[in-house]
Protein backbone atom coordinates (compact mmCIF):
# COMPACT_ATOMS: atom_id res chain seq x y z
CA UNK A 1 0.00 0.00 0.00
CA UNK A 2 2.72 2.45 1.01
CA UNK A 3 4.40 2.26 -2.38
CA UNK A 4 1.29 3.32 -4.28
CA UNK A 5 0.25 6.27 -2.06
CA UNK A 6 2.33 8.91 -3.86
CA UNK A 7 0.77 8.14 -7.26
CA UNK A 8 -2.75 8.05 -5.80
CA UNK A 9 -2.16 11.46 -4.19
CA UNK A 10 -0.89 12.85 -7.48
CA UNK A 11 -3.95 11.61 -9.38
CA UNK A 12 -6.38 12.92 -6.79
CA UNK A 13 -4.68 16.30 -6.69
CA UNK A 14 -5.05 16.45 -10.47
CA UNK A 15 -8.79 15.88 -9.94
CA UNK A 16 -8.79 12.36 -11.33
CA UNK A 17 -10.92 9.55 -9.96
CA UNK A 18 -9.14 6.44 -8.73
CA UNK A 19 -10.06 2.77 -8.40
CA UNK A 20 -8.36 0.38 -6.03
CA UNK A 21 -7.93 -3.35 -6.69
CA UNK A 22 -6.97 -5.64 -3.79
CA UNK A 23 -6.14 -9.36 -3.81
CA UNK A 24 -8.70 -10.89 -1.42
CA UNK A 25 -8.17 -14.60 -2.07
CA UNK A 26 -5.25 -16.68 -3.25
CA UNK A 27 -5.55 -20.30 -4.37
CA UNK A 28 -2.44 -22.25 -5.30
CA UNK A 29 0.87 -20.53 -5.89
CA UNK A 30 -0.16 -17.04 -6.88
CA UNK A 31 2.66 -14.54 -7.24
CA UNK A 32 1.23 -11.77 -5.04
CA UNK A 33 -0.09 -12.23 -1.51
CA UNK A 34 -3.44 -11.43 0.08
CA UNK A 35 -3.81 -7.66 0.36
CA UNK A 36 -1.59 -6.83 -2.65
CA UNK A 37 -2.85 -3.70 -4.40
CA UNK A 38 -3.13 -2.05 -7.76
CA UNK A 39 -4.50 1.48 -8.16
CA UNK A 40 -5.90 2.72 -11.45
CA UNK A 41 -6.62 6.34 -12.44
CA UNK A 42 -9.61 7.27 -14.57
CA UNK A 43 -7.34 7.70 -17.60
CA UNK A 44 -6.02 4.16 -17.26
CA UNK A 45 -2.66 4.74 -15.56
CA UNK A 46 -1.75 2.10 -12.98
CA UNK A 47 0.56 1.64 -10.01
CA UNK A 48 1.23 -1.44 -7.89
CA UNK A 49 0.35 -5.02 -8.83
CA UNK A 50 -2.04 -7.84 -8.05
CA UNK A 51 -0.35 -10.67 -9.92
CA UNK A 52 3.14 -9.77 -11.03
CA UNK A 53 2.02 -9.20 -14.61
CA UNK A 54 -0.49 -11.92 -15.56
CA UNK A 55 -3.80 -10.13 -15.03
CA UNK A 56 -2.91 -6.46 -14.64
CA UNK A 57 -4.32 -5.30 -17.96
CA UNK A 58 -7.60 -7.16 -17.36
CA UNK A 59 -7.77 -5.60 -13.90
CA UNK A 60 -7.28 -2.11 -15.34
CA UNK A 61 -10.23 -2.71 -17.70
CA UNK A 62 -12.43 -3.87 -14.83
CA UNK A 63 -11.30 -0.91 -12.72
CA UNK A 64 -12.33 1.54 -15.43
CA UNK A 65 -15.77 -0.09 -15.59
CA UNK A 66 -16.03 0.13 -11.81
CA UNK A 67 -15.25 3.84 -12.03
CA UNK A 68 -17.97 4.45 -14.61
CA UNK A 69 -20.60 2.34 -12.82
CA UNK A 70 -19.55 3.38 -9.31
CA UNK A 71 -20.22 -0.17 -8.01
CA UNK A 72 -17.47 -2.34 -6.50
CA UNK A 73 -17.02 -5.85 -7.89
CA UNK A 74 -15.30 -9.10 -7.03
CA UNK A 75 -13.42 -10.69 -9.92
CA UNK A 76 -11.78 -14.09 -10.16
CA UNK A 77 -8.76 -14.78 -12.35
CA UNK A 78 -7.31 -18.18 -13.10
CA UNK A 79 -3.68 -17.88 -13.93
CA UNK A 80 -3.15 -20.47 -16.65
CA UNK A 81 0.19 -22.17 -16.73
CA UNK A 82 0.97 -21.06 -20.29
CA UNK A 83 0.21 -17.46 -19.46
CA UNK A 84 2.31 -17.83 -16.37
CA UNK A 85 5.27 -19.06 -18.37
CA UNK A 86 5.00 -16.16 -20.77
CA UNK A 87 5.57 -13.69 -17.98
CA UNK A 88 8.20 -15.85 -16.35
CA UNK A 89 6.16 -17.06 -13.40
CA UNK A 90 6.11 -20.63 -12.26
CA UNK A 91 2.58 -20.27 -10.96
CA UNK A 92 -0.73 -21.78 -11.83
CA UNK A 93 -2.90 -20.27 -9.14
CA UNK A 94 -6.18 -18.47 -9.01
CA UNK A 95 -6.70 -15.09 -7.41
CA UNK A 96 -9.77 -13.15 -6.46
CA UNK A 97 -9.57 -9.37 -6.68
CA UNK A 98 -11.91 -6.81 -5.14
CA UNK A 99 -12.15 -3.66 -7.24
CA UNK A 100 -13.71 -0.52 -5.80
CA UNK A 101 -13.87 3.19 -6.49
CA UNK A 102 -11.68 5.13 -4.08
CA UNK A 103 -14.52 7.35 -2.87
CA UNK A 104 -14.48 6.53 0.83
Amino acid at each position, binding site marked *: *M*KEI*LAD*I*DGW*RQAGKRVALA*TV*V*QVYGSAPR*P*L*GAKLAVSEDGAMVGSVSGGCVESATVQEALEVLSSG*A*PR*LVSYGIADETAWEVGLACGGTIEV*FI*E*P*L*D*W
Partner: protein
Amino acid sequence: MAELFDQVAQAIREDELCAVVTVLGGEKVGGKLLARRAASRERGSAIATAGSLGNGALDQAAVERAKDAMEAGGTTRVTIAAEGREWDLLIDVHVPQEKLVIVGAVHIAIPLVTFAKALGLYTVVIDARQIFATQDRFDHADELVRSWPEDALQEMTLSESTYFVTLTHDEKLDTPALIHALGHPVGYVGALGSKRTHAKRVAVLREAGMSDEQIARIHAPIGLDLGGRSPEEIALAIMAEIVQVRNRRTDRSKEGRE
Protein backbone atom coordinates in the same frame (compact mmCIF):
# COMPACT_ATOMS: atom_id res chain seq x y z
CA MET B 1 -14.92 12.47 -0.08
CA ALA B 2 -11.97 10.22 0.59
CA GLU B 3 -11.74 11.34 4.19
CA LEU B 4 -11.37 7.81 5.49
CA PHE B 5 -8.78 7.03 2.86
CA ASP B 6 -6.78 10.04 4.04
CA GLN B 7 -6.75 8.61 7.55
CA VAL B 8 -5.68 5.22 6.24
CA ALA B 9 -2.94 6.81 4.13
CA GLN B 10 -1.69 8.78 7.12
CA ALA B 11 -1.55 5.69 9.36
CA ILE B 12 0.37 3.79 6.69
CA ARG B 13 2.76 6.68 6.03
CA GLU B 14 3.47 6.85 9.75
CA ASP B 15 3.99 3.09 9.63
CA GLU B 16 1.40 2.44 12.30
CA LEU B 17 -0.15 -0.97 12.95
CA CYS B 18 -3.72 -0.73 11.62
CA ALA B 19 -6.42 -2.72 9.82
CA VAL B 20 -8.83 -1.70 7.08
CA VAL B 21 -11.98 -3.83 6.97
CA THR B 22 -13.96 -4.01 3.71
CA VAL B 23 -17.32 -5.65 2.99
CA LEU B 24 -16.76 -7.74 -0.14
CA GLY B 25 -20.35 -8.60 -1.06
CA GLY B 26 -24.03 -8.10 -0.36
CA GLU B 27 -25.96 -4.90 0.05
CA LYS B 28 -23.24 -3.22 2.14
CA VAL B 29 -20.53 -4.02 -0.40
CA GLY B 30 -17.68 -1.54 -0.24
CA GLY B 31 -18.38 -0.64 3.41
CA LYS B 32 -15.15 0.38 5.14
CA LEU B 33 -13.85 0.58 8.64
CA LEU B 34 -10.41 1.60 9.88
CA ALA B 35 -9.23 0.05 13.15
CA ARG B 36 -6.14 1.36 14.91
CA ARG B 37 -4.86 1.65 18.42
CA ALA B 38 -6.10 4.62 20.42
CA ALA B 39 -2.55 5.00 21.73
CA SER B 40 -0.91 4.22 18.45
CA ARG B 41 2.37 2.73 19.65
CA GLU B 42 1.09 0.81 22.63
CA ARG B 43 0.40 -2.85 22.64
CA GLY B 44 -2.90 -3.69 24.36
CA SER B 45 -4.25 -0.20 23.82
CA ALA B 46 -7.98 0.17 23.14
CA ILE B 47 -8.99 0.13 19.48
CA ALA B 48 -10.15 3.35 17.87
CA THR B 49 -12.23 3.18 14.70
CA ALA B 50 -13.22 5.40 11.82
CA GLY B 51 -15.85 4.74 9.19
CA SER B 52 -18.52 2.03 9.33
CA LEU B 53 -19.50 -1.16 7.54
CA GLY B 54 -23.06 0.10 7.60
CA ASN B 55 -24.32 -1.76 10.65
CA GLY B 56 -23.46 -1.27 14.34
CA ALA B 57 -23.45 -4.95 15.34
CA LEU B 58 -21.33 -5.83 12.32
CA ASP B 59 -18.88 -3.02 13.15
CA GLN B 60 -18.51 -4.34 16.66
CA ALA B 61 -17.89 -7.92 15.54
CA ALA B 62 -15.50 -6.76 12.82
CA VAL B 63 -13.42 -4.70 15.26
CA GLU B 64 -12.91 -7.78 17.44
CA ARG B 65 -11.66 -9.75 14.43
CA ALA B 66 -9.53 -6.81 13.29
CA LYS B 67 -7.92 -6.71 16.72
CA ASP B 68 -7.03 -10.42 16.44
CA ALA B 69 -5.66 -9.95 12.94
CA MET B 70 -3.54 -7.02 14.11
CA GLU B 71 -2.15 -9.13 16.96
CA ALA B 72 -1.42 -11.97 14.55
CA GLY B 73 0.12 -9.47 12.15
CA GLY B 74 -1.49 -10.58 8.90
CA THR B 75 -4.20 -9.79 6.36
CA THR B 76 -7.09 -12.25 6.40
CA ARG B 77 -10.50 -12.84 4.81
CA VAL B 78 -13.26 -13.80 7.21
CA THR B 79 -16.96 -14.57 7.32
CA ILE B 80 -18.73 -12.99 10.26
CA ALA B 81 -22.26 -13.66 11.42
CA ALA B 82 -24.10 -10.53 12.57
CA GLU B 83 -27.73 -9.42 12.45
CA GLY B 84 -28.77 -12.90 11.32
CA ARG B 85 -26.64 -12.78 8.21
CA GLU B 86 -23.17 -13.77 7.11
CA TRP B 87 -20.75 -11.11 5.96
CA ASP B 88 -17.78 -11.62 3.68
CA LEU B 89 -14.99 -9.33 4.88
CA LEU B 90 -11.38 -8.59 4.10
CA ILE B 91 -9.31 -7.49 7.08
CA ASP B 92 -6.33 -5.80 5.52
CA VAL B 93 -3.59 -5.39 8.12
CA HIS B 94 -0.72 -2.97 7.76
CA VAL B 95 2.23 -4.25 9.77
CA PRO B 96 4.93 -1.69 10.58
CA GLN B 97 8.40 -2.30 9.22
CA GLU B 98 10.50 -3.86 11.97
CA LYS B 99 13.60 -1.91 12.79
CA LEU B 100 16.87 -2.60 14.56
CA VAL B 101 18.52 0.45 16.13
CA ILE B 102 22.17 -0.12 16.98
CA VAL B 103 23.95 2.38 19.18
CA GLY B 104 27.67 1.98 18.55
CA ALA B 105 29.24 1.45 15.11
CA VAL B 106 31.62 -1.10 16.61
CA HIS B 107 32.89 -4.26 14.97
CA ILE B 108 30.01 -6.43 16.23
CA ALA B 109 27.59 -4.03 14.57
CA ILE B 110 28.92 -4.93 11.10
CA PRO B 111 27.78 -8.59 11.04
CA LEU B 112 24.74 -7.65 13.17
CA VAL B 113 23.51 -5.38 10.36
CA THR B 114 24.06 -8.22 7.88
CA PHE B 115 22.06 -10.73 9.96
CA ALA B 116 19.28 -8.25 10.75
CA LYS B 117 18.84 -7.37 7.09
CA ALA B 118 18.70 -11.03 6.12
CA LEU B 119 15.85 -11.38 8.62
CA GLY B 120 13.95 -8.50 7.08
CA LEU B 121 14.71 -5.74 9.58
CA TYR B 122 15.41 -2.13 8.65
CA THR B 123 18.76 -1.24 10.20
CA VAL B 124 19.90 2.03 11.77
CA VAL B 125 23.40 2.49 13.17
CA ILE B 126 24.14 5.47 15.42
CA ASP B 127 27.60 6.66 16.39
CA ALA B 128 29.09 10.16 16.52
CA ARG B 129 32.64 8.81 16.56
CA GLN B 130 34.00 9.32 13.05
CA ILE B 131 36.52 6.50 13.15
CA PHE B 132 33.76 3.96 13.82
CA ALA B 133 30.90 5.34 11.78
CA THR B 134 32.45 5.14 8.33
CA GLN B 135 30.50 4.54 5.15
CA ASP B 136 32.98 1.80 4.24
CA ARG B 137 32.13 -0.22 7.30
CA PHE B 138 28.38 0.39 7.15
CA ASP B 139 27.57 0.63 3.49
CA HIS B 140 25.09 -2.22 4.03
CA ALA B 141 23.11 -0.42 6.77
CA ASP B 142 19.86 1.28 5.79
CA GLU B 143 20.83 4.35 7.82
CA LEU B 144 24.11 5.46 9.33
CA VAL B 145 23.54 8.36 11.71
CA ARG B 146 26.68 10.26 12.70
CA SER B 147 25.51 12.02 15.82
CA TRP B 148 25.29 11.49 19.58
CA PRO B 149 22.76 8.81 20.46
CA GLU B 150 20.67 11.14 22.61
CA ASP B 151 20.26 13.59 19.73
CA ALA B 152 19.70 10.93 17.09
CA LEU B 153 17.09 9.09 19.19
CA GLN B 154 15.02 12.23 19.75
CA GLU B 155 14.25 12.22 16.05
CA MET B 156 13.18 8.57 15.88
CA THR B 157 9.96 6.69 16.44
CA LEU B 158 10.62 3.88 18.89
CA SER B 159 7.68 1.47 18.88
CA GLU B 160 7.15 -2.19 19.70
CA SER B 161 8.41 -3.08 16.25
CA THR B 162 11.74 -1.44 17.13
CA TYR B 163 14.55 -3.56 18.55
CA PHE B 164 17.21 -1.61 20.34
CA VAL B 165 20.80 -2.49 21.25
CA THR B 166 23.69 -0.57 22.77
CA LEU B 167 27.17 -1.75 21.84
CA THR B 168 29.52 1.24 22.27
CA HIS B 169 31.59 -0.18 25.19
CA ASP B 170 31.31 3.32 26.63
CA GLU B 171 28.82 3.85 29.42
CA LYS B 172 28.80 7.59 28.79
CA LEU B 173 27.17 6.81 25.45
CA ASP B 174 25.22 3.63 26.24
CA THR B 175 23.51 4.71 29.45
CA PRO B 176 21.73 7.86 28.16
CA ALA B 177 20.66 5.87 25.09
CA LEU B 178 19.24 3.11 27.30
CA ILE B 179 17.38 5.65 29.44
CA HIS B 180 15.80 7.05 26.30
CA ALA B 181 14.83 3.62 24.94
CA LEU B 182 13.33 2.46 28.24
CA GLY B 183 10.95 5.39 28.08
CA HIS B 184 9.40 3.85 24.95
CA PRO B 185 7.51 0.60 24.28
CA VAL B 186 10.36 -0.92 22.23
CA GLY B 187 10.10 -4.64 21.47
CA TYR B 188 13.60 -5.49 22.70
CA VAL B 189 16.38 -3.74 24.60
CA GLY B 190 19.81 -5.30 24.85
CA ALA B 191 23.02 -3.88 26.26
CA LEU B 192 26.51 -5.24 25.63
CA GLY B 193 28.69 -5.71 28.69
CA SER B 194 29.63 -8.25 31.31
CA LYS B 195 27.54 -9.01 34.39
CA ARG B 196 29.84 -6.73 36.37
CA THR B 197 29.44 -3.87 33.91
CA HIS B 198 25.70 -4.38 33.94
CA ALA B 199 25.53 -4.31 37.74
CA LYS B 200 27.25 -0.92 37.69
CA ARG B 201 24.94 0.23 34.93
CA VAL B 202 21.87 -0.81 36.90
CA ALA B 203 23.01 1.37 39.79
CA VAL B 204 23.38 4.35 37.47
CA LEU B 205 19.98 3.72 35.88
CA ARG B 206 18.33 3.55 39.31
CA GLU B 207 19.93 6.83 40.24
CA ALA B 208 18.56 8.29 37.04
CA GLY B 209 15.06 7.34 38.22
CA MET B 210 14.46 4.19 36.16
CA SER B 211 12.08 1.73 37.82
CA ASP B 212 12.98 -1.91 38.50
CA GLU B 213 10.42 -2.91 35.91
CA GLN B 214 12.06 -0.75 33.26
CA ILE B 215 15.53 -2.00 34.16
CA ALA B 216 14.33 -5.61 34.02
CA ARG B 217 13.48 -5.09 30.34
CA ILE B 218 17.18 -4.88 29.47
CA HIS B 219 18.68 -8.07 28.11
CA ALA B 220 22.14 -8.17 29.68
CA PRO B 221 24.51 -9.80 29.15
CA ILE B 222 23.17 -9.39 25.64
CA GLY B 223 22.34 -12.33 23.36
CA LEU B 224 21.60 -16.01 23.74
CA ASP B 225 24.46 -17.97 25.26
CA LEU B 226 25.96 -19.62 22.19
CA GLY B 227 29.40 -19.76 23.78
CA GLY B 228 30.98 -17.66 21.02
CA ARG B 229 33.64 -14.98 21.27
CA SER B 230 34.12 -13.54 17.79
CA PRO B 231 32.18 -10.43 16.70
CA GLU B 232 30.22 -12.55 14.23
CA GLU B 233 29.28 -15.09 16.88
CA ILE B 234 28.21 -12.37 19.30
CA ALA B 235 26.19 -10.66 16.58
CA LEU B 236 24.50 -13.99 15.84
CA ALA B 237 23.74 -14.48 19.56
CA ILE B 238 22.14 -11.01 19.71
CA MET B 239 20.10 -11.61 16.58
CA ALA B 240 18.99 -15.03 17.83
CA GLU B 241 17.77 -13.43 21.05
CA ILE B 242 15.83 -10.78 19.14
CA VAL B 243 14.19 -13.48 17.01
CA GLN B 244 13.28 -15.41 20.17
CA VAL B 245 11.70 -12.35 21.77
CA ARG B 246 9.87 -11.47 18.57
CA ASN B 247 8.40 -14.96 18.17
CA ARG B 248 7.34 -15.23 21.77
CA ARG B 249 5.59 -11.93 21.50
CA THR B 250 3.55 -12.94 18.49
CA ASP B 251 2.84 -16.44 19.82
CA ARG B 252 1.78 -15.65 23.32
CA SER B 253 1.05 -11.97 23.29
CA LYS B 254 2.13 -10.55 26.63
CA GLU B 255 3.72 -13.57 28.26
CA GLY B 256 7.27 -14.72 28.01
CA ARG B 257 9.02 -11.46 28.73
CA GLU B 258 12.24 -12.25 30.49
